[in-house]
């Protein structure tokens, strides 16, 4: 008896360590995310507070509308003549106009730096000659003076292997410019503002290249000694014409800080979601472990413990495990935060150097989450343990529970699953304002519901999954199959943890595959040209318009036309609109015009997607209210209605209307159709030759354009895979834990089998296949849930251009194979333990 007790404690040590590890990982991830958020916020707060310290007031155009994702208020420019007025305002010591726009520095190797479409922006601006107003400080060289001089940020210098004295190309709205680097600058304490690349020119050069001559983006003002910021701002406001405003320096700092927070909040939400998933998976494991150990404990202390004592001791153990694991997780979380900072830097978003901000809030949230995720799942097993008579608990261990679970279980599981499903579908398909807040919990509920139901389908599912095992692996296979089916409750619970991970992997795989398939279809359907010249830019910047013009003049090219993008507020919501050269573009893009003619798209008109027109009751000639950042509110007339949502989106502007309302004039992409008389190779060579003069311009044919469009999907996919891999590791810990406990319980029969001739190899093999069966059960359920999620999201994203549901059978097969492999890995330690079992002791122990 003593020996059994000691063995029990040893087994429990390992089990507690495994269980705790599941919590540790989740808490570490949660802490890491929170600490990183705090660190980012604090360092950026400090950074902007420092660099704008000398700015007392800022004159700018009134914001036209607020853009999402931290892009801040969208506003036009300030006429340069205002500077003289502002300078004369009482209390203003010095004032200076400045501009900031799009510019891309070409590295030594000829490739443009930065990834403006998906990373930090690439900026060009004016070098401030007023020291107090200049956020940049020279670390080498001198300020730009001539027409062909610039200073660049230290990060770009490092990444691009550039130094003072080098001449390199800068891409702007104007044709590519050769510029000499006269100096290297830092932004406050950092090498670059948030990882952006920065090229700074003299004010007139900056105006010409990245803005407009005669215009500033803002005017910054230094106050006379003793004049408070708000007094200065109110003095300035009095001299400003309508449409312009004066903000205090403090206000600008605050706005910038808040914009950075908003820009980062997407990343934070994303990471917190994964931390929650990791914790939930940990919760499944806690539930399963406590269910098993509570039964064992009932056997060990078959007599003499009151119900209340059992309940109390189990919850106490859970709380202790939770507390210790959370404390360890907290400590590791700081490391995770540093790792995540590296991840951000790899994505091109540099967080300024500086210490880690470990705030009490992060500690409190993580501790609470860690203890909660341990104690709450332990409640139900603890309560059950205090009710089940010990004798029943003993029987349960020897023969296992069988059958399909109670009717109540099926009912509860069905209700939870249905509730989750309806929340999910409501979130996806109805106009709920915060979709994630409805869809997320809905998805969680579906996982819970299916895990409850999993116990009822576990038996037939296991039999089905294990069907080939006896044929493949003989007696060991048969034993594995029987062991996996002998306690469906336990198998189902262990599988549930893995189900969450594989379900999400399947979901994201299906969604990505559908997205890529839809991209392909869209391109095939709507692009009727031959080549695309892509800029790699996002909303800001792109290809200088001279490129499209030069391509158009090539004899090998029948037509080349650029498309432009811009942010507007239309019918009350912020949208990206496409600007295109109406008659020419329609020879290359088939947007399926339904009413009106492309030629009608003039300076005061707009084209609307059929669905939007229907929804907003728009017809040809109806008025649409559009707010532009540069020109303010305008009423445009519907001149065309089209049916194809990709790549046009909901609204399209003709080039005349685009030019009239946007100050910037970059082409985002240039579509090219070759002349029919010319061979493909000749036309491509000609296009390539011209494009070579524009670093960053990528000439793509139809196939490589598809591949290029799919690239960001794959990037997101690999990031998500990495993060979900974590939850799968946690789930594997759970499976290993279950196996270890099962093996401990089966000591005697393992002894018998070893005595009558089962080799260690055979024993390990049977444990291995049992593990594979559990893993596959979780995977099959996960695939089912994931396919449903994927289908739902694809259907809900039809308007975003994801119109095709594609089931990537090969990818899903790989997931199944990997899950089986993972099951084998999880079985290694328990299998080794089982094989090391002392046969004699196992057989003769009473």
């Amino acid at each position, binding site marked *: 008896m003593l020996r059994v007790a000691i063995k029990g404690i040893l087994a429990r040590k390992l089990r507690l360590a495994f269980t705790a590890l599941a919590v540790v990982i989740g808490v570490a991830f949660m802490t890491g995310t929170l600490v990183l958020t705090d660190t980012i916020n604090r360092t950026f707060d400090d950074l902007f507070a420092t660099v704008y310290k000398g700015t007392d007031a800022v004159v700018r155009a009134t914001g036209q509308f607020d853009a999402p994702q931290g892009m801040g208020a969208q506003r036009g420019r300030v006429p340069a003549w205002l500077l003289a007025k502002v300078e004369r305002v009482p209390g203003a010591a010095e004032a200076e106009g400045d501009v900031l726009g799009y510019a891309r520095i070409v590295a030594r190797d000829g490739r443009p730096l930065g990834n403006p479409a998906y990373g930090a922006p690439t900026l060009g601006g004016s070098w401030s000659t007023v020291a107090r107003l200049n956020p940049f400080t020279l670390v080498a060289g001198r300020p730009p003076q001539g027409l062909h001089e610039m200073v660049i940020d230290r990060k770009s210098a490092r990444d691009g292997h550039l130094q003072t004295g080098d001449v390199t190309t800068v891409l702007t709205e104007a044709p590519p410019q050769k510029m000499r680097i006269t100096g290297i600058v830092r932004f406050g304490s950092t090498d670059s503002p948030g990882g952006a690349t920065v090229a700074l020119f003299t004010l007139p050069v900056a105006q010409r290249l990245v803005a407009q001559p005669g215009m500033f983006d803002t005017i910054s003002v230094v106050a006379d000694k003793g004049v408070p910021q708000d007094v200065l701002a109110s003095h300035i406001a009095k001299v400003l014409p309508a449409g312009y405003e004066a903000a205090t320096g403090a206000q600008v700092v605050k706005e910038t800080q808040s914009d950075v927070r908003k820009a980062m909040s997407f990343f934070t939400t994303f990471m917190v979601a994964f931390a929650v998933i990791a914790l939930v998976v940990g919760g499944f494991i806690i539930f399963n472990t406590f269910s098993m150990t509570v039964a064992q404990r009932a056997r060990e202390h078959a007599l003499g413990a009151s119900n209340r004592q059992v309940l109390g001791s189990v919850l106490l153990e859970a709380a202790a495990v939770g507390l210790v694991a959370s404390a360890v997780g907290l400590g590791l979380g700081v490391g995770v935060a540093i790792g995540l900072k590296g991840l951000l830097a790899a994505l091109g978003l540099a967080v300024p150097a500086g210490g880690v901000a470990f705030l009490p809030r992060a500690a409190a949230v993580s501790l609470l989450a860690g203890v909660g995720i341990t104690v709450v799942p332990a409640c139900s097993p603890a309560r059950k343990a205090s009710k089940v008579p010990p004798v029943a608990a003993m029987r349960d261990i020897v023969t296992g529970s069988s059958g399909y679970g109670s009717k109540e279980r099926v009912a509860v599981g069905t209700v939870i699953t249905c509730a989750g499903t309806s929340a999910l579908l409501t979130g996806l398909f109805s106009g709920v304002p915060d979709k994630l807040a409805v869809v997320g919990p809905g998805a969680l509920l579906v996982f819970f519901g299916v895990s409850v139901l999993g116990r009822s389908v576990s038996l037939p599912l296991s039999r089905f999954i294990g069907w080939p095992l006896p044929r493949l692996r003989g007696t060991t296979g048969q034993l594995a199959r029987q062991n996996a089916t002998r306690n469906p409750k336990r198998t189902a619970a262990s599988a549930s943890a893995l189900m969450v991970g594989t379900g999400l992997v399947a979901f994201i795989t299906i969604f990505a595959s559908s997205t890529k398939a839809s991209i392909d279809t869209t391109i095939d359907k709507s692009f009727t040209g031959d080549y695309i010249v892509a800029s790699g830019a996002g909303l800001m910047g792109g290809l200088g318009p001279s490129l499209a013009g030069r391509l158009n003049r090539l004899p090998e090219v029948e037509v080349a036309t650029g498309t432009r993008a811009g942010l507007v507020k239309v019918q009350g919501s912020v949208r990206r609109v496409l600007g295109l050269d109406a008659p020419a573009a329609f020879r290359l893009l088939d947007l399926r015009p339904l009413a009106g003619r492309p030629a009608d798209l003039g300076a005061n008109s707009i084209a609307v997607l059929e669905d939007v027109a229907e929804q907003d009751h728009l017809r040809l000639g109806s008025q649409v209210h559009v707010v532009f950042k540069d020109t303010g509110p305008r009423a445009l007339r519907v001149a065309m209605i089209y049916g194809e949502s990709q790549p046009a989106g909901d609204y399209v502007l003709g080039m005349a209307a685009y030019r009239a309302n946007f100050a910037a004039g970059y082409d985002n992409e240039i579509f090219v159709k070759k002349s029919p008389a010319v061979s493909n190779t000749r036309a491509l060579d000609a296009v390539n030759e011209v494009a070579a003069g524009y670093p960053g311009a990528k000439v793509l044919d139809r196939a490589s354009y598809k591949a290029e469009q799919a690239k960001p999907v794959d990037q997101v996919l690999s990031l998500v895979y990495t993060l979900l891999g974590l939850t799968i590791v946690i789930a594997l810990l759970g499976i290993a834990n279950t196996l270890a406990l099962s093996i401990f319980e089966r000591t005697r029969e393992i002894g018998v089998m070893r005595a*009558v*001739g089962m080799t260690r190899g055979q024993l390990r093999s049977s444990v291995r296949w049992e593990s594979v069966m559990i893993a596959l059960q979780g995977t099959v359920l996960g695939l089912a849930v994931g396919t449903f999620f994927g289908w739902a999201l694809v259907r809900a994203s039809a308007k975003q251009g994801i119109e095709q549901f594609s089931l990537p059978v090969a990818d899903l097969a790989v997931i199944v194979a990997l899950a089986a492999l993972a099951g084998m890995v999880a079985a290694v330690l328990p299998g080794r333990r089982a094989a090391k079992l002392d046969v004699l002791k196992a057989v*003769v122990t009473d």
Partner: protein
Amino acid sequence: MALATPQSLTTSVLAAQTVEAVKVYGKGQAEACALNGISIGFAKGQFSAIMGPSGSGKSTLLHCLAGLDRLTSGKAYIGGTDLSNLDDRQLTLLRRDSIGFVFQAFNLVPTLTAKENILLPLLLASRSGDPAWIDHIVSTVGLAHRLSHRPDELSGGQQQRVAVARALASRPEVIFADEPTGNLDSRSGTQLLSFLRTAVDQLGQTIIMVTHDPVAASHADRAIFLNDGQVVDEIAQPTPRLVLDRMNDFGK
């Protein structure tokens, strides 16, 4: 019958034997000698009972002979095979192919049917065995109608009969039985012992049984008495009376 000395017997007629078998448990002060130089042989086709008070070393002798435990010094043989030369895998295969086991309890694998339990050593060896032989065993132990049942659906006596059938299934060199009747009522016990007897008389098997029950021992061809790790006596054709008298001598 005189004590058989291993040197005088060739291995060909011995199913199992030990030579100067010593087994010491623990170290230093806690050292305990379970086998103190035992040399003994077990002839083929013989049913032997090993008897002795608790701590006499009878179970240890059985475990060491059966390849479940290792001797500290000396040799143990199954047929002509020296167990001390075998690694874990070879020992396991020896147990599978050449040895049958009947333990006191927990003999069967709960997830397997009676039939599967009987065939377990053969299945583990990926052999089908001799169907006629298996049928014969099954009918001999009277289990033909219970073959598809799982152990928890069988009585204690039936479970032990399944264990005996399993031990016989691969026609092992020798069958070891460790208190096989210890957990059975007297009727089931007697039935089981008569099956063991039948296995020796009609099927030509060799059985070595550890027991402390004089009635059980009386079913054997010889009873060997151990005390303090040494063979102290032997009775041929034991009767319950003879055995009980001999046992009582230990108490003195």
